[in-house]
């Protein structure tokens, strides 16, 4: 009884690039139901009892790992956290050996973060378990883009036709890449703002507008999506100093006033206050930064549910 739902085609979520518009919309629609679960006193459903989820993190991360962990627990799965410093990887075990050993422990879903682009893709090919990319190098961070899209839809009711500015270090940002694919697939008008050294030429569709000035780029946008300056990747001089970065690219009250009056401000966290964004803006009513955090759990629950569905019945 009960009708069958729309399904994802793949057992894995490696990148937004591989998802169709229908699949993205399916994930976002499904997340609405899970957001409701998060509002209850009892924030847990029995849906995925007996399933095992492994967080396999080769890069430090507290937020994303915690968000996935909470999402998995609220679906009643068992969750194991593997982090690089505590695992046998330091003893020289190969990546695939580590992953297949984790699968042999009975993992149904492996959530992977790695500093090298393409690792989730590699694992997806080698494992029967579902693989979810939680960020790979400078390539993609698909669930971040999905939670960003969900947050925008919650505010505006839809995404098609919105003007969305992504600001900062596009070059090193997997968040930006996933968001560009996701938002454009959903019909948004995406523009990029940042220093020429941090916006790679020729990587994206030529019809994406690029601005090298906040004053020019922020005019009348609906969404200002700030990126984190990745201090750990800035040792090769993409910009002179953080002071100068703030002066040219920091989001201030005055600059935000150039956007539409009902524009929202987003940031994937953790924020560098005083470098890419001022506290005044980050904590203002226009900021949806904390909504992003909450919505991340709902969207990740939706992804875990749909991938389990895609694997069910063989």
């Amino acid at each position, binding site marked *: 009884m009960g009708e069958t*739902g729309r399904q994802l085609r793949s057992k894995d979520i490696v990148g937004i690039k591989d998802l169709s518009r229908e699949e993205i919309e399916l994930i976002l629609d499904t997340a609405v*139901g899970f957001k*409701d679960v998060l509002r209850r006193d009892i924030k847990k459903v029995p849906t995925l009892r007996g399933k095992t989820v492994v967080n396999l993190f080769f890069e430090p991360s507290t937020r994303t790992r915690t968000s996935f962990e909470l999402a998995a627990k609220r679906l009643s799965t068992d969750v194991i956290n593997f982090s690089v410093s505590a695992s046998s990887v330091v003893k020289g075990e190969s990546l695939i050996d580590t992953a297949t050993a984790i699968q042999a422990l009975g993992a149904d879903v492996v959530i992977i973060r790695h500093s090298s682009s393409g690792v989730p893709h590699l694992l997806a090919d080698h494992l029967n378990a579902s693989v979810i990319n939680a960020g790979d190098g400078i390539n993609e961070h698909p669930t971040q883009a999905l939670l960003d899209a969900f947050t925008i839809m919650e505010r505006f009711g839809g995404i098609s036709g919105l003007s969305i500015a992504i600001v900062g270090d596009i070059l090193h940002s997997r968040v930006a890449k996933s968001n560009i694919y996701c938002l454009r697939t959903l019909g948004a008008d995406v523009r990029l703002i940042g220093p020429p050294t941090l916006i790679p030429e020729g990587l994206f569709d030529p019809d994406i507008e690029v601005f090298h000035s906040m004053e020019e780029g922020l005019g009348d946008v609906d969404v200002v999506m700030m990126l984190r300056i990745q201090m750990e990747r800035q040792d090769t001089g993409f910009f002179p100093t953080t002071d100068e970065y703030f002066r040219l690219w920091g989001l201030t009250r005055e600059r935000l006033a150039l956007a539409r009056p009902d524009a929202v401000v987003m940031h994937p966290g953790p924020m560098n206050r005083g470098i890419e964004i001022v506290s005044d803006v980050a904590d203002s009513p226009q900021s949806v930064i904390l909504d992003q955090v909450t919505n991340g759990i709902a969207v990740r629950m939706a992804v875990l549910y749909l991938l389990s569905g895609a694997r069910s019945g063989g």
Partner: protein
Amino acid sequence: MTKELLDSTDMERTITRMAHEILEKNRGVEGLCLVGIQRGGVHLSKRLAERIKSIEGRDVPVGMLDIALYRDDLNIRKEYPAVRKTDIPFEITGKVVVLVDDVLFTGRSIRAAMDALMDIGRPARIELAVLIDRGHRELPVRADFVGKSVPTSVGETVNVEFSEEAGVDRVVLTGK
């Protein structure tokens, strides 16, 4: 082979009678709320609420409940069901909740719905209203309010159609 079990006039009369029975058993609408199970139960719960309002002149709160996350067959299904909206914008703790579904069959949906309700609050009592009881229970579940009991064979399908979606009110039995 298709057979019409109820036409739109039958459905109208049946729903009116069920509304009266709900009011009779609960002696009015005090502390009463309706929760329709997605999707067939949602339309029926709204119809019942309209009828109750026209009889008593008072609104009764109506919510909708999705049971996909509580189903007992997720591990044996080929595909997972779509997750639909749960929207119960009122407190159910201490209330009499009338669960509403279009067809009562194995009873498994009702088990799932009761578990889902219990995670949302602690009703004083749960009652069950269904438009069609087609038999073949697999769990010890019975309805308090039944529109029509219909003997069926397991392979047959009972479809309740509401004008909101199908353009017409009717109940159809389709054979194998």
